[in-house]
């Protein structure tokens, strides 16, 4: 036993001095101490910002989050219309959902006390069900320097502008395996993009196959909805990427390049073996006019359903605008052929250089087949509608592209003006650069108003096409030399539209310029050519603003006639045409096999 020391008895009394200090006790404990500024308390959600991607639900390890429909909110493109509902019998305040929120709409308040005697109360949809902490300004937010999402794309290797100018080789090289996996792993699998894609491809599904390195499954998924995957992997307008939820905070996933990556991994000769399409003939016949993406897509899907399909194409080769309108540095022929060859290998019969209306009558097709689908595309260039536009040195953009694609000399000379701001204009300009011409692009509005893809504009700029914007052509005149042409154009001023539309250019009469060029390429739009249609059928088809009105499944008021592609949809791009082909196939199948009309 230790000896008792006096010190040991006295020293505990030392703390009596504390009696003169302020007590430690909080007088009003509940009100006195709100949570710290970054306290993780109950959830707050800005439902305007939230797009209902459900990533919070995915990451929650406690299954505390349900995505639920919310009153006054419907699904729309880019927004599922669902909002997260939290179960406070599960939420552990870890804030992983806040950290991963793709729109930064979710945060936490610093409120922490919630007491009730009914355990079923502890469920709420923040932002929808009113709670006392909705307006608390403080609480946990993701630190801007900290993100669980990957916001940047791996750099894509491309030909430099100089290298690009010297060849018609493909500009974009495609992902390396490492890049593809990194890019594929950025996907949060929210499925929002599926609704945006006109063909409703299973995008998260095939991206997953890249992560898992199972390209064969990837190809099978692609071919469920899109027989032009190799093509779309290169030239798709990728509206899915605009709605990719990652784009709210960073760069959207390169969905297009990933699709291309899958098809690049599999050689054409393996397609048959991997896809293993088995066709059971059903003895019915369908005629398809035009072997563009729309027509061939319809042919593919109809063939899979067992129809006997004949395609009529006026050109030498199939592909339509993809072959004759898209230059090879964007879409090489072998990539396109890979897709087309597979479709044709399914037993689609195709008649080249057979123009309907010339070599064969539409009425014959109509009578001999159980249904007719046509997607003949917009192939008649629109005129400039200015004086002197019939000058021989005024060429059409489509013609130039077609000549180059067919390896003919378009004869543009050395100094070229391109009028227009769409993809055709950009392609025509870049093609001219590649055959050695100096190119000036004249456009009525500003660069940001151009309908062309931003990448195309950037690449055209990099390839040193001169952009002259807010330039309105006024008059085309003869030049001294027959090989030249003179254009008068005026500067324009952008005037805000009173009706809330986009600003329109107004010509300033006092600022006119006159330039001379070797040729002028007009690329301001195209229209369709329907002269092949017999008058009685034409009468039955309804059209609005130059486009045919069709049902959900591309059916016209003539139940036997289906229309798709640029002449029927507003967006006028390849993927929409492919989607039209697919839906037409569904529609035709419904009519022919089930004997019912379609919506």
């Amino acid at each position: 036993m230790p000896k008792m020391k006096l010190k040991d008895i006295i020293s505990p009394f030392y703390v009596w001095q504390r009696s003169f200090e302020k007590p430690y006790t909080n007088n009003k404990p509940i009100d006195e101490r709100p949570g710290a500024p970054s306290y993780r308390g109950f959830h707050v959600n800005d439902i305007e910002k939230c797009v209902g991607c459900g990533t919070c639900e995915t990451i929650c390890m406690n299954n505390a989050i349900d995505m639920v429909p919310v009153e006054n909110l419907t699904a729309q493109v880019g927004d599922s219309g669902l909002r997260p509902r939290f179960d406070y019998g599960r939420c552990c305040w870890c804030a992983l959902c806040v950290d991963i929120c793709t729109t930064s709409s979710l945060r936490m308040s610093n409120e922490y006390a919630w007491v009730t005697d009914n355990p079923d109360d502890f469920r709420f949809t923040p932002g929808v069900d009113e709670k006392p902490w909705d307006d608390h300004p403080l609480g946990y937010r993701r630190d801007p320097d900290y993100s669980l999402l990957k916001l940047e794309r791996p750099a894509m290797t491309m030909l430099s502008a100089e290298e690009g100018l010297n060849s018609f080789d493909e500009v974009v090289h495609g992902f390396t395996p490492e890049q593809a996996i990194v890019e594929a792993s950025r996907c949060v699998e929210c499925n929002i993009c599926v609704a945006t894609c006109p063909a409703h491809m299973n995008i998260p599904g095939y991206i997953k196959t890249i992560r898992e390195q199972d390209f064969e499954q990837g190809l099978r998924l692609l071919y469920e909805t899109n027989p032009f995957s190799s093509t779309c992997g290169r030239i798709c307008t990728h509206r899915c990427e605009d709605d990719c939820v990652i784009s709210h905070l960073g760069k959207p996933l390169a969905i297009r390049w990933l699709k291309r990556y899958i098809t690049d991994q599999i050689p054409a000769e393996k397609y048959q073996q991997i896809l293993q399409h088995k066709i059971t003939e059903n003895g019915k016949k369908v005629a398809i006019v035009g072997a563009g993406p729309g027509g061939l897509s319809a042919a593919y899907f109809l063939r899979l359903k067992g129809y006997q399909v004949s395609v009529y194409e006026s050109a030498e080769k199939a592909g339509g605008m993809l072959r004759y309108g898209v230059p090879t540095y964007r879409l090489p022929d072998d990539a396109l052929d890979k897709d087309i060859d597979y479709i044709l290998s399914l037993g689609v019969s195709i008649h080249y250089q057979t123009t309907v209306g010339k070599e064969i009558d539409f009425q014959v097709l109509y009578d001999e087949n159980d249904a007719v689908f046509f997607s003949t595309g917009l192939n008649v260039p629109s005129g400039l509608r200015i004086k002197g536009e019939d000058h021989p040195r005024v060429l059409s953009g489509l013609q130039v592209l077609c000549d180059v694609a067919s390896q003919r000399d378009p004869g543009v000379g050395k100094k070229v003006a391109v009028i227009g701001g769409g993809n055709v204009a950009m392609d025509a300009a870049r093609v001219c650069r590649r055959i050695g011409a100096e190119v000036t692009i004249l456009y009525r509005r500003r660069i940001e108003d151009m309908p062309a893809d931003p990448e195309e504009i950037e690449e055209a700029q990099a390839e040193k096409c001169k952009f002259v914007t807010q330039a309105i052509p006024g008059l085309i005149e003869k030049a001294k030399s027959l090989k030249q042409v003179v254009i008068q154009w005026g500067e324009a001023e952008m005037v805000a539209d009173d009706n809330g539309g986009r600003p329109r250019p107004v010509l300033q009469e006092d600022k006119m310029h006159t330039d001379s060029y070797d040729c002028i390429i007009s690329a301001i739009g195209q229209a369709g050519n329907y002269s092949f249609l017999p008058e009685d059928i034409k009468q039955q088809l309804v059209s609005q603003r130059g486009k045919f009105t069709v049902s959900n499944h591309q059916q016209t008021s003539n139940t036997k006639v289906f229309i798709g592609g640029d002449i029927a949809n507003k967006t006028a791009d390849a993927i929409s045409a492919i989607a039209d082909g697919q839906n037409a196939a569904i529609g035709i199948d419904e009519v022919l096999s089930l004997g019912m009309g379609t919506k």
Partner: protein
Amino acid sequence: MKSLINRLTEQFKVSLEKQTKSDLCFIRVNKDDAEQLIRHCRDHESYTHLSFLTAIDRIEDNKFTLTYLLHNYQSHQSLGVHVELDRENPVMHSLHRLWGQMATYQRELKEIYGIEFPGSPRLNDEFFLEGWDQIPPMRKEFSTVEFCEERFPIREGRQSTDAKQTMKVEIYPGRGE
């Protein structure tokens, strides 16, 4: 650590599995040599501290791997000893006379993996669990979610909606397949 492995390979049938860092490596030994090897490491190589004993369920190889992690306080190095057991009939010699806490670890493994250590004290006493009537819970084939669904009711009223399906119905009904 190389020289230690060399010394051990001279005397025992061991194989180096991997050296993950300069002060930690894992060796493999068959189950009948394990006691001798571990005793040797403890008595002659200064691996006097047993950090833990645990098991890994390698269901794909139909094996359990026991890991004895020994630590040397002088060289500050750790040695993991792997012993493979057959998954169908997992029996290991009891090493409870090497360290005082070994019996506890063996009791735990018996309960959560069903590995037998004949002769180990209090081996069949309940440890973490009470009245457990299923297969040992840490085995991979035991699904804790399914068990919970069957045994423990949760609160009703939870339902989540699938975004893809909702958008299909609301935005593009009938389009696509």
